[in-house]
């Protein structure tokens, strides 16, 4: 059998000499390298597709919301109370869609390394208060107790404010969602110690359902959800924590969770106070 034929028939009976086996392995290795390159290219294409399509979806979605707001604000005449409710439904649905599409876009840009930091100096306490205020209605609805604290001597941080706010919002949103009515949620910012010295540490904790130890890594992975079936009780893109991790790591920080099933969770992230120039 010629050398070429033995390469193209990998399962055929090739000679059992070390040379023949080596040749076969080298051929298979070459094939594998080519296939990996093709898969990487396809993965990049899919990520780019995600970024493009979510970018494109925002225009018609914004049109839906804008028209809803035009109706709601009475610009084209007054609405009856029931018409008003219907319009609010349009706006609410539109906004939820826009948020999910925005999440997919951020994920895709992150995966394609197209996200950039826009740092500014700010007090983390302001961001914590801002995010908490946005979640106040839901907290009230679920009768949760919420505590927001920051060390009195916490310095201002040099970071991308919007991205840090996004991370806090994601963690707080999860804490609220996964804590049954009447439970407790807290957010606190402090100076990091030991391996996190020089960093600010933010903790978002809850007395909710908790996460089993074997899922602690899984939850940060894209598309992974502890229950991914369509009938799962908690819906979403499964991208929130993946994005949170990407945004934290963009700052040179780290994010982790301490939790046990049944006893609540504490999500923490550390971000350096200063960014390199």
């Amino acid at each position, binding site marked *: 059998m010629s050398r070429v034929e033995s390469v193209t028939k990998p399962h055929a009976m090739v000679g059992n000499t070390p040379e023949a086996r080596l040749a076969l392995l080298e051929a298979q290795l070459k094939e594998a390298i080519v296939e990996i390159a093709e898969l990487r290219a396809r993965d990049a294409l899919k990520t780019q597709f995600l970024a493009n399509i979510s*970018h494109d979806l925002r225009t018609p979605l914004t*049109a839906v919301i804008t028209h809803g707001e*035009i109706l709601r604000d009475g610009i*084209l005449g007054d609405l009856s109370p029931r018409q008003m409710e219907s319009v609010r439904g349009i706006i609410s649905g539109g906004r939820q869609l826009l948020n999910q599409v925005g999440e997919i876009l951020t994920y895709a840009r992150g995966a394609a390394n197209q996200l*950039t930091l826009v740092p500014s100096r700010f007090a983390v306490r302001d961001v914590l208060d801002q995010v908490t205020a946005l979640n106040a209605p839901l907290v009230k609805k679920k009768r949760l107790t919420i505590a927001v604290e920051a060390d009195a001597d916490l310095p201002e941080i040099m970071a991308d404010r919007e991205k840090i706010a996004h991370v806090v919002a994601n963690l707080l949103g999860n804490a609220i969602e996964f804590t049954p009515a009447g439970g407790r949620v807290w957010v606190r910012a402090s100076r990091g110690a030991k391996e996190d010295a020089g960093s600010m540490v933010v903790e978002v904790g809850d007395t909710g359902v908790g996460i089993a130890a074997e899922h602690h890594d899984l939850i940060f992975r894209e598309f992974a959800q502890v229950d991914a079936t369509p009938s799962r009780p908690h819906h979403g893109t499964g991208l929130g924590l993946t994005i949170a991790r990407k945004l934290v790591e963009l700052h040179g920080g780290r994010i982790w969770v301490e939790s046990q099933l049944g006893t609540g969770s504490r999500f923490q992230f550390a971000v350096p106070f200063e960014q390199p120039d």
Partner: protein
Amino acid sequence: MVEDSELVTDALRVLLESADYRVSIAGSIAEALGIPHTDAPSVALLDLTLPDGDGLVLVAPLLASGWNRVVALTGHDDANTRDRCLAAGCIDVLLKPVPARELVSRVAGWLQ
């Protein structure tokens, strides 16, 4: 507005007209260049992705014919794009999708 998407122009037109602005729309570079000097707008919103080319090529000719406030509309959120627009003569750059409620107050700002 120099913008070819009706989805974008319909909603913005309603908002701007409700704030008592007169709104005209051109859907392409060719159409925009055909607008007479006497109809020069107080503010122009210029989409960069037009069916017949890059909207930025319009800025110089439009400014020369009496348009004096051109704002670029772009979906690209980066410093490079922003710099290109400002260098071409735009007074500001708006990110798409345009936050509609903000638009009316920003127009007022540009007109001051």
